[in-house]
């Protein structure tokens, strides 16, 4: 069954060029204003976001009719929606979906809690039509070449499925996923983040397509686009991000006139590409547990469509299940591994002629610096410190995951502790900042420390 909204391109609903809404009060006094976003619920209903109680809302409560003009951002062609206000929702799936988008922008523009959704106002679409005469069709637009998908859709799903199920370890899995997203769909800029043991932060464990790898970069849950996805366990797809931020900044400027600046936080820079115009982020969820977030971005304003969203959701679900199984399997296998003795022969000894690497552990900040450069913090920092100290004191080179899990100083939770992802992060940070020190997997649940340079350890209370 088709409804009046069939045939209107979905990009018209992405809020790039603001839509207008005309209403009237009971005396016949019209009101017209701009809307940030028209949310398409189904082919007969739309929802408009109400962030501030305004004249539009007052009018439709008294006289339910409204007229909205939607503009196609690619062509500026216009569609007319004749609406009748139906009801407002202040909770539930629709409200949560609309709220998440607004919260993400509020967070990025430093206005969490100030700029928020009051209600999702649901309207019935009485009629929808193309508006003739808006565009001069004698002026023809140059055609934008559409890049074909590089491989067929089913083949892409097959590739992802095959590579994730055959991944030998966490690092292998992450690299396979990001590489396949690029290969199959041209998602050139992607990252994977994992939730830490405090459940309050996400840390970056794998990236693809960035000048700087950004491994170890952290995002608070609920903050920005990626943090919102982890908190709400929902997909977030945003196009024309700059337009969304501009809208947020307009409100910020208006708020500054009426409230103390202290109510507002500084703007948070977007992670990843400085000039990204499209973002899409998926939570990696198993049951009701969030494991992490898979995020892609692009400089193209309309890079991701509904199809990409659906596809990435399939990928994210598959990755989440594989990841969870991998972490659980690895944890169980650990307890079958006997404690390795200290007698292991060093795989590689330190070459005394190389300059001494100076590692400093700052207890209060729970972080390690190497030669005055920040290396890593929290759990992976404690792992490294434990391993280096053991090596320095006893000459040990062989370690097991099990002993790390049993060490209360490391503070790993009893189950699903993300140890493997912490080791991946630690390995990548070492490779980037101190390639002379390596942690190499030797077998399931075991790893060796390889040290090519002499090192010194120093513990301090604070920097």
């Amino acid at each position, binding site marked *: 069954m088709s409804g009046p909204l069939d045939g209107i391109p979905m990009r018209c609903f992405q809020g*790039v*060029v*603001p839509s*207008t*809404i*005309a*209403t*009237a009060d*009971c005396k*016949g*006094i*019209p*009101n*017209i*204003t*701009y809307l*940030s976003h028209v949310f398409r619920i189904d082919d007969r209903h739309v929802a408009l976001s109400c*962030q*501030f109680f*305004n*004249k539009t809302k007052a009018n439709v409560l008294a*006289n339910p*009719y*409204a*007229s*909205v*003009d939607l503009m196609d*951002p*690619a*062509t*500026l062609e*216009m569609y007319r929606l*004749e609406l009748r206000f139906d009801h407002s929702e202040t909770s539930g799936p629709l409200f949560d979906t609309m709220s998440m988008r607004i919260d993400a922008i509020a967070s990025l523009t430093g206005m969490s809690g100030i700029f928020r959704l009051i209600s999702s106002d649901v309207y019935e679409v009485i009629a929808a039509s193309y*508006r*003739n*005469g*808006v*565009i*001069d*069709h004698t*002026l023809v*637009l*140059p055609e934008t070449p559409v890049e074909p998908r590089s491989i067929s859709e089913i083949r892409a799903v097959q590739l992802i499925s095959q590579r994730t199920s055959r991944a030998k370890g966490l690092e292998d899995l992450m690299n396979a996923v990001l590489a396949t997203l690029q290969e199959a769909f041209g998602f050139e800029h992607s990252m994977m983040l994992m939730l830490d043991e405090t459940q309050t932060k996400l840390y970056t464990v794998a990236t693809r397509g960035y000048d700087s790898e950004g491994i170890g970069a952290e995002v608070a849950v609920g903050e920005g686009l990626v943090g919102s996805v982890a908190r709400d366990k929902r997909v977030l797809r945003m196009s*024309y991000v*700059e*337009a969304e931020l*501009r*809208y947020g*900044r*307009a*409100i910020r*400027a*208006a*708020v500054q*006139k*009426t*409230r103390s600046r202290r109510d507002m936080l500084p703007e948070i820079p977007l992670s990843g590409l400085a000039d990204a*115009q499209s973002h899409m982020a998926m939570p990696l969820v198993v049951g009701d547990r969030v494991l992490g977030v898979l995020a892609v971005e692009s400089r193209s*304003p309309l890079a991701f469509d509904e199809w990409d969203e659906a596809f990435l959701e399939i990928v994210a679900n598959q990755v989440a299940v594989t990841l969870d199984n991998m972490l659980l399997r690895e944890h169980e296998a650990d307890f079958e591994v006997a404690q390795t003795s200290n007698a292991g022969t060093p795989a590689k000894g330190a070459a005394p002629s190389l300059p001494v690497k100076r590692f400093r552990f700052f207890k209060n900040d729970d972080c390690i610096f190497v030669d005055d450069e920040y290396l890593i913090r929290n759990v992976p920092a404690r792992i490294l410190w434990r391993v280096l100290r053991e090596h320095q004191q006893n000459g040990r080179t062989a370690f097991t995951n099990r002993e790390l899990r049993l060490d209360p100083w490391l503070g790993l939770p009893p189950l699903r502790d993300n140890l493997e992802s912490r080791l991946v992060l630690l390995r990548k940070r070492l490779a980037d900042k101190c390639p002379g020190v390596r942690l190499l997997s030797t077998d399931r649940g075991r790893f060796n420390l390889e040290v090519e340079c002499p090192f010194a350890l120093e513990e301090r209370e604070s920097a």
Partner: protein
Amino acid sequence: MGTCDANLKPEGTRAVGAVVAPDRARITVFLNEANSERTLANLAVNPRAAICFTRPIDHRTVQVKGRVLTVRRTLDSEKPRLDRYLSAFVEALYLVGVTRATGGRIAYWPSMAVEITVEDLFHATPGPGAGGRLS
């Protein structure tokens, strides 16, 4: 420009230009004739109009409310003014990511000129102050 018919059904149409009269109490709003039929029909039965002006780059927005004084065909001699208005608008859209080729397709001629006497001015920039009267 927002208008409303005798049954209180509202309607909006995109204006393609505006000129403030020297007395600053009247505004002439230009509408593209090809898509302003309903607006003009509404104004014939209900002279009240709302006009929203926005600057795309920062969403600075004001709303003008008033009553229609006259409706007429835009004169050929006024076209250069509309050309300039639209050129400036295309540049404003370009700043927010709409290509000039796309912006340049906005149809605006032939046009109708709607003269309005200004009765009220409101802040309409998104935010908590939207809807407040401009002093």
